[in-house]
């Protein structure tokens, strides 16, 4: 299977993502420069983390107008998988591929640490290798990760099971909602209505090897592989 990893000016997790796909998963990957008009046969598109366009105006606001995004949107409309990580999640929201927006962390601080997530929906093409309710450890590294949506949108995505990952494990109860950035309902990751676009602030590509603290992120890449290959 071929993964296309989009590189915007300011992306900085594209190499880590490439490593996760090629070295950890053992699949093919190609970098897609943001000015290209062709996904070069990619089965899966990944919008990686970073600071595209220096987060000018708002995080992700300029990147959504990059030429490649037209192809990424068409790819998503065909029902093909898009994994949008961190800055990629911000871009996907700005592009209208996912509902809501990511705002400055409530603490006003950049947060870089391993967090615990609960898998809220294990029936998506990104999470079928997990069990519902499973706790996984994946790092976050962002300054603008506070998921925000209007009440109606929030009720809809909760009701439709589109909240895929939630932050848990604050001081006290390991299973309670707890948000490191002030996200509504401690939301860490959501899918679109069709279920083929996943946006998440945590970095699964940084959790693909026990040597680096966790390999819990592999489940996402393996899930994509098993679903698309099936």
């Amino acid at each position, binding site marked *: 299977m071929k993964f296309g990893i989009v590189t915007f000016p300011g992306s900085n997790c594209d190499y880590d993502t490439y490593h996760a796909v090629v070295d950890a998963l053992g699949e093919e990957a190609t970098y897609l420069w943001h000015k290209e008009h062709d996904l070069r046969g990619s089965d899966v598109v990944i919008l990686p983390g970073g600071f595209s366009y220096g987060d000018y*105006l*708002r995080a992700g*606001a300029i990147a959504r*107008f990059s030429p490649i995004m037209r192809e990424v949107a068409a790819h998503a409309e065909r029902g093909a998988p898009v994994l949008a990580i961190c800055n990629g999640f911000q871009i996907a*929201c*700005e592009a209208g591929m996912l509902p*809501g*927006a990511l*705002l*400055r*962390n*409530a*603490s*006003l601080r950049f947060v870089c640490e391993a967090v615990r997530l609960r898998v809220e929906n294990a029936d998506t093409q990104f999470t079928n290798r997990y069990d519902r309710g499973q706790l996984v450890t994946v790092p976050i590294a962002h300054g603008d990760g*506070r998921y*925000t*949506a*209007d009440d109606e949108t929030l009720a809809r995505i909760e009701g439709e099971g589109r909240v895929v990952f939630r932050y848990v494990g604050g001081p006290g109860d390991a299973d309670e909602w707890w948000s490191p950035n*002030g996200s509504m309902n401690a939301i860490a990751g959501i899918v679109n209505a069709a279920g083929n676009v996943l946006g998440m602030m945590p970095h699964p590509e940084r959790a693909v090897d026990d040597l680096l603290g966790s390999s819990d992120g592999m489940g996402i890449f393996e899930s994509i592989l098993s679903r698309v290959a099936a």
Partner: protein
Amino acid sequence: MSRFRVAVHIAPRRGLLDPQGKAVTDALRTLGFASVQDVHVGRHLVVEMDAADPAAAERTTRDMCNKLLANPVIEDFEIASVSTL
């Protein structure tokens, strides 16, 4: 065609948590400005453009705000002024 300068205020949507505004509010109170009730931190943009008249300049700027300059999910905007250059 004339040239106009259009000023736009963009602020966090009312009711949304605004941690920057709260931090500035607290700092002002610490400085002794006890009367401060609330502060909201947003952006101020100045767009210079050619248009037939001020109304057209304002209309075009609103369009820009809806499509790029502001994010309607989280921000409100207002055209603060339109001046002729």
